[in-house]
């Protein structure tokens, strides 16, 4: 053993210096080169599209069309023409879409987070025992109504009223006969599993619903639709945060005479603030980026940024990459800022808790 070691020592020591770590907390030089190399490679892959977007927005049409130029002030002279075009001459459409996007995303987020966190809190604190038979009856009534509408063409408002009436008449009797109940876990699962539903399944009837009440191409239609689509995420994440808050706090507050609402708003929500912030940011970003629902539910007045940008393809002169780059930068700038804030929450493991659960 020893002789072997001595004989091979020059070669092994070189190898060892390169491939074996000096201590357990450090990497060997060769590993370090590979690790940093790969990480930097991926950072370039991530950042390059953004860099290209940025410099394209400062290029003149000639600079884009003549073939690629890479470095401002060296390859080409940066020009503000595309930015000026957007902000000075052509700002009306963009500004309207931008304001629409802000209004819709903000209000949808507020609605979604409010409703979702209330439901999540209730599911963590109050025992619900919906009767299984009642739910089956409700679904049967809805299906019967749908069949009647589809098969015999009865007016849907009439059949909805009849279906609901039948449900309320029978609900009590059915509830008395069949005692099996579901629990909070089932309700929670039902709410979260709504996320599996591809939006395309629900969006056509939603379109028809809003059309029949003349709410197409309005903010309110999109706000409601966005809120529903993101509700499962809020319920899931917020439920996880509320579970970590001890129930003693609720109980002592209620002994002091606080109502459930006061307990929720003044004691529980402040404690769940980090989670609330993270969830709000996440939903805000998802609403800002939403495309399909807006595609269905808006035409011109309530058009959001993603739709505006997607429609820029349709110009006669092909895609004007420089203006496109400007609009995309304007569109993604707020989300990138939010992402940087949100990243802190994830690295603190707040969102991880939900994924683990």
């Amino acid at each position, binding site marked *: 053993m020893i002789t072997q070691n001595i004989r091979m020592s020059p070669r092994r020591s070189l190898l060892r210096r390169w491939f074996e770590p000096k201590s357990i907390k450090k990497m060997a030089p060769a590993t370090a080169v590979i690790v940093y190399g790969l990480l930097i490679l991926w950072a370039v892959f991530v950042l390059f599209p953004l860099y290209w977007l940025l410099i394209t927005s400062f290029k003149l049409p000639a600079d884009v069309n003549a073939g690629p130029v890479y470095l401002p002030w060296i390859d080409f002279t940066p020009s503000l023409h595309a930015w000026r075009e957007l902000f000075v001459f052509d700002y009306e459409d963009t500004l309207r879409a931008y304001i629409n996007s802000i209004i819709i995303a903000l209000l949808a987020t507020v609605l979604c987070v409010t409703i979702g966190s209330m439901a999540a809190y209730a599911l963590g604190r109050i025992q619900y025992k919906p009767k299984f038979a009642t739910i089956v009856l409700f679904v049967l009534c809805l299906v019967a109504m749908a069949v009647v509408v589809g098969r015999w063409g009865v007016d849907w408002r009439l059949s909805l009223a009849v279906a609901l009436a039948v449900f309320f008449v029978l609900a009590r009797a059915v509830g008395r006969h069949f005692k099996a109940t579901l629990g909070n876990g089932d309700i929670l699962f039902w709410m979260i599993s709504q996320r599996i539903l591809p939006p395309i399944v629900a969006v056509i009837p939603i379109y028809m619903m809003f059309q029949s009440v003349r709410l197409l191409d309005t903010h309110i239609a999109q706000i409601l639709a966005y809120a529903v689509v993101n509700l499962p995420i809020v319920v899931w994440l917020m439920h996880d945060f509320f579970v970590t808050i001890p129930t003693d706090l609720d109980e002592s507050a209620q002994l002091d005479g606080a109502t459930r609402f006061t307990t929720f708003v003044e004691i529980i929500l402040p404690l769940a603030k980090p989670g609330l912030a993270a969830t709000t940011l996440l939903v805000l970003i998802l609403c800002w980026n939403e495309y399909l629902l807006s595609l*269905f539910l808006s035409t011109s007045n309530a058009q959001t940024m993603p739709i505006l940008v997607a429609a820029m393809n349709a110009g006669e002169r092909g895609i004007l990459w420089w203006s496109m780059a400007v609009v995309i930068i304007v569109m993604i700038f707020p989300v990138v800022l939010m992402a940087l804030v949100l990243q802190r929450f994830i690295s603190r493991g707040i969102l991880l808790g939900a994924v683990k659960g």
Partner: protein
Amino acid sequence: MTSGTGATTTSRLGRVAPAGPNASVTTRARLNEWLDRQSRQLFIAPAVIIILIFSVFPTIASLVLAFSNIRLRAGSYQVQFVGLRNFRKQFFGTEQFHFLGTFTSISLLGWIVTIASAASLIWWLYRYAKRDFTILGFIGRLITASMGFGLALLFSATLFSGNPFGTLGVTIFYVIVGCTIQFLIGLGLAVLCAQPIKGRTFFRVVFFIPLMITPIGIGYSFRMLADTTKGPFSPIWQWIGLGDFGWANHAWTARLFIVIGDSWQWIPFIFVILLAALENVSRDQVEAGQVDGASGWQVFKEITWPQIAPVAATVMLIRIIEAFKLVDLPNIMTSGGPGIATESMTLHSFFAWRALNLGDSAAIAYLLLFVTVVLCVSFFNLLVLKRLRPA
């Protein structure tokens, strides 16, 4: 009329006034009390109602649409029940090429794949039936196996027989290939970032950014980058001699193009969550393993992976659910082309809707829902629950 209402108002005010602030306090207190008594319902009712109206009801309505022929009348719709016609059209009729793909005869390779998958699925069912049999479990596995066999047959008849496949195949392709790539790269990056490196925060922040960028923006940026005459890599393309090559002009490069865009966006999601999971792995065990002389791979396989596997499975479940909904990237980057080569099912349904074929659109949407639910529930039951969480 107006004077009458005025009079009642004053009289009402007059009656209330003498009682003073006390009365309003009691009304408010009574209201509060009533609210508190109803709080059980009030807390959960908004969420339940909004889900019922905008999610459950439309899902049922969509089912009705899928079984009907819808004609547009001035301001309203005429719904006519047509039974399974919309579905039959997708599977056997004029839309078969679009939904399933083009069929000729199945090649030898196709037969081999079909028989192999059938045999393995039957073996899997048989083993389950012998070991721990429950009726529900068996029915669930039977559904999973039928779906698996159907997809195997679909790909044998199209991909392995040299025929183009339709939007169902494209969607499955995005889910399987996209999610696999994203998982492997995301895990790799997370492992790299979990090494004792400097500037971890920098890398984590940078790697996180793409997740939040609007897919529309990503679609156009990647079109800009991929342009072989004006894009940044055009000198390379010219040099290889592919100067007039267009990514979006060939079926497979177009699909690959979309998977790359999708991965650019979603790898950060898997990376960030897995990195957070890796940081929670106990250092003691890893160091003990290293002291005992285990190689890096052994440490990862025996110590790290079992601890992060549940998180990984959950992350992949979320990712797969979202991958089935992919629509914006194909619409922006290739508008589903060339032909139908990159059209996902959501996009297919959208195009049908735009052509006012509401019945077809709903039928395709429902088929997507069916495939999504079966595959996601299978994934959840067989991987997330069974394998990774021994009770």
